[in-house]
């Protein structure tokens, strides 16, 4: 993949982290762990398969087709819910409908900001679909996005981004898969 596209991803990830910082009132560090064309099933083992997480899954259509999945380990999701819903730190021990709605909105905002940068820089139309929520084991949640995607494409542009919320010591993981067919048509040799 071209260094150009890696830069675009870094900028998009930076914008997404800015949006998250504004939302929770804390600095959010961001690291594009990987942005490469890979087999759909080959992901970095960022978390253990059985670790309980929450995931916000969004389909992407338009000139670029793909999917995004924002994941928070369960403890991070609880801490984030405390901030989002205005509870005392350490209060949330299970997620209410309000928490789930707030976390879906986080997914929406993070993905929205990421795709806005991508859309502007590549001059493409990107349509985000409504966010879907799940709380379960990391492996099981990631499997859904992988199998849905792998049904159509063996390979994808796989982007993995880690967010670190320093003052709150919580972490997030943002996984994006883009179909190569549309990207190749758009970017040609620049992909």
């Amino acid at each position, binding site marked *: 993949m071209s260094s150009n596209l890696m830069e675009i991803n870094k900028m998009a990830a930076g914008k997404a982290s800015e949006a998250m910082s504004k939302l929770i009132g804390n600095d959010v560090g961001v690291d594009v762990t990987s942005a490469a064309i890979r*087999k759909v*099933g080959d992901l970095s083992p960022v978390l*253990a*398969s*059985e670790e*309980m997480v929450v*995931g916000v*899954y969004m*389909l992407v259509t338009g000139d670029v087709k793909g999917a995004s999945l924002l994941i928070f380990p369960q403890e991070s999701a609880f801490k984030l819910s405390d901030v989002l819903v205005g509870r005392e730190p350490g209060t949330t021990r299970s997620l209410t409908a309000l928490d789930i709605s707030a976390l879906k909105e986080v997914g929406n905002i993070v993905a929205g900001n990421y795709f806005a940068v991508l859309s502007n820089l590549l001059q493409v139309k990107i349509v985000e679909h*409504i966010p*879907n*929520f*799940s709380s*379960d*084991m*990391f*492996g*099981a*949640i*990631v*499997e*859904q996005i*992988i*199998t*849905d995607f*792998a*049904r*159509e*494409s*063996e390979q994808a542009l796989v982007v993995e981004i880690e967010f670190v919320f320093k003052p709150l010591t919580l972490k997030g993981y943002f996984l994006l898969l883009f179909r190569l067919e549309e990207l190749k048509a758009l970017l040609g040799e620049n992909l």
Partner: protein
Amino acid sequence: MDIEVNMGEMAVTRRHEDNLMTLGVGSCVVVTLYDPKRKIGGLAHAMLPARLGTVDDQELLSRRPPPAASGKYIEAAIDDMIGKIEVLGGSKEDLEAKLIGGANMFTDFESEIGKDNVACAMKKLKQEGIRLAGEVVGGSKGRSVEFAVASGIVTVKIKF
């Protein structure tokens, strides 16, 4: 020995002390095959019903050391497991199968992949004349699976 079988992999063993395990199964389907007379077992954690146009199994095979060979596609994984069990002295006629997985993890999102995986596995087992001894499929919960080869007992765990 605990043998972890990752997504897209398959393992077969006749060592009675082995446990075949796979963790965090969502829309994939896990197929276990067991020859109770000879205590030979296999487990595949398959992603998709059928192969796409391009074949990449050889690369997967070369990248992962045995015993976890490729189990990405259900039909091929079942064929491969049957073959390997027979090589170890098992008999296809004596095999019994169990199915786990095929969930839809995002209930508001319409995805048929879990259902299709389960249907494909059931069809293939029927075609091969292998008895389905048990199933824990569908729904919207992730599952972890442990298969004790000595007893043939398959334990399915969910987490909340």
